[in-house]
């Protein structure tokens, strides 16, 4: 199993977020509000943080969190809250792009393995086994070794590292649809291989992708931020959460808020994505 497969497995278990399907629970309400806040911060940061993220004010440098500066200020007196909110767009975009790459590759491999017969299935499975032998960030580190550090390579690297997990889940889904009674009925009625793929297998594989992508984006954001923190992704002047945390590391003894709040937003985003993914899964299942 991979991290993504654990998330997907737990999300699809009957116990995850129990309760009646029709009712909107308090957890779901909070999650929806948080998602709305994060999306607003990503698309129109001015609405939730009207200040200028680059405005320096040396007189109030290293100010601790207060009423004026809720998250404190950094070494040039820039407001941390404003900077964190303005960094949301970058971090979410990197996470979404990495998820899209992982999901796209996973879909390609999973559908190929699930539909083109045993030889292809065998080959794809061996490839996945090889990729799984580079656990966690190791595949991403090898990719960065070859193509050099930077935002673009880090994003692709994260996408690539998550692709095997998506591929294995999608392959299993394709196989289970293929062996179902309605596909058998369609085959008996004379629907060809291409027709079965487009009319039955793909539609039934695509619905769970929404859940998978939502569950996976949190992981992608955490990994991309880790690469930035290690100096292999986005670098400090950029308003990206991992890079901001890395910049705050120098002042950790005197100004903890510089590294605490960007990280808090990463955790908040990852938790929101997980709960949202589970909630969508549950609603799709009961629909």
């Amino acid at each position, binding site marked *: 199993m991979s991290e993504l497969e654990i998330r997907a497995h737990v999300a699809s278990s009957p116990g995850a977020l129990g309760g009646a399907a029709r009712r909107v629970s308090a957890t779901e309400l909070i999650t929806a509000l948080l998602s709305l806040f994060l999306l607003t911060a990503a698309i129109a940061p001015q609405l939730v943080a009207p200040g200028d993220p680059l405005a320096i004010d040396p007189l109030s440098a290293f100010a601790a969190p207060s009423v004026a500066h809720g998250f404190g200020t950094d070494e040039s007196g820039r407001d941390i809250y404003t900077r964190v909110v303005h960094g949301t767009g970058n971090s979410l975009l990197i996470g979404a792009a990495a998820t899209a790459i992982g999901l796209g590759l996973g879909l390609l491999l999973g559908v190929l393995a699930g539909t083109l017969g045993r030889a292809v299935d065998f080959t794809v499975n061996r490839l996945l086994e090889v990729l799984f032998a580079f656990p*966690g960030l190791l595949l991403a580190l090898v990719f960065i070794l070859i193509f050099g550090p930077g935002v673009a390579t880090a994003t692709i690297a994260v996408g690539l590292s998550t692709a095997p997990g998506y591929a294995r889940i999608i392959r299993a889904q394709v196989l289970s649809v293929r062996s179902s009674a309605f596909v058998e009925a369609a085959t008996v009625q004379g629907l060809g291989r291409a027709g079965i793929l487009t009319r039955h297998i793909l539609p039934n594989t695509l619905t769970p992708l929404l859940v998978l992508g939502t569950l996976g984006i949190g992981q992608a954001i955490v990994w991309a931020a*880790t690469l930035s923190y290690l100096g292999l992704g986005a670098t400090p002047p950029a308003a990206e959460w991992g890079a901001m945390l890395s910049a705050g590391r120098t002042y950790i003894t005197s100004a903890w808020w510089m590294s605490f709040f960007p990280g808090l937003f990463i955790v908040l985003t*990852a938790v929101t994505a997980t709960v949202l993914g589970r909630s969508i899964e549950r609603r799709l299942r009961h629909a």
Partner: protein
Amino acid sequence: MPRRPAPDDSRITRGVPARSGGARLVMRVLGAVGVLWLVATLTFFAVRLIPGDPAQAILGGPGSQASAEALAAVRAEYGLDQPLLVQYLAQLGRLATGDLGRSYALNMDVGPLVMSQIGGTLLLAVLALALAWLLALSLATWSTRGGGVARRIGSGLEIVAAALPHFWLATSLIVVFSIWWGVLPPISTSGAIGLVLPVVTLAVPLAGFLGQLMRESLLTALESPFVLSARARGESERGVRWVHALRHAALPAVNLSGWAFGSLISGAVVVETIFARPGLGRTLLNAVTVRDVPVVVGVVLIVALAYILMTVLTDVAARIIDPRLRLA
């Protein structure tokens, strides 16, 4: 909508006839050797994609202004003037004898370098794995014994723990325990006290994942017929939980040990860097930063080998815990 199938569907898709335990183990080991060979092949050819002349990199990068003679000498010494296929076979031959090549940057062989660093990382990983198991098990048993509120708290804690990035958890722990309270060192010294923060940092996110799985399978097990019959026989609640249900709860977590090990090694890259602890993870990050190709390849191959061994071992362990698997 069709239900999501269980992640492992190998029994559904392939009509492999049942084999005896021994034959199955041999097949498993042969498969593992095959995967290892593919890993070595993939890294060999992937590394060829790096732009620039490897001979130049060996002599200290583009800034070194190495003479043409020096470059030619290095090419001959490392066999870089040979055809690709010859280089590939030579590389496989060296790997088969345990020779991982020589570091570009550190003026030492990769094998001894890895051996000198692996102990610290393994110690960290084993302690973190043990702590993660303990945390996950306590949370899972506590939250399934209580009512709905306990379950919600347990589930919430696990989701948050699984979402914690190592680097943020590490810096937050340093702020609280080293800077504010001054009880634990921010730099991992050789003593046991220096291990506390790195181990906790690695264990907590892992416990989040393990806990989610354990609680889910514990709940499933507690509702199954064999637990009902154990209760009907008059076994105590404690006996039912510890003897019957926990065995089922442990199974998914045992299956996950290979993944957990891999995620710990990748977490060690971050943790060893933050706590300035010597180890495999920090060596790997330094090598990636200065593009020391043989060291990166060497560390990655060792981790892949360990990962593959772990998956074979967990496969065997799962069969010991769950007798049903032996029949499959």
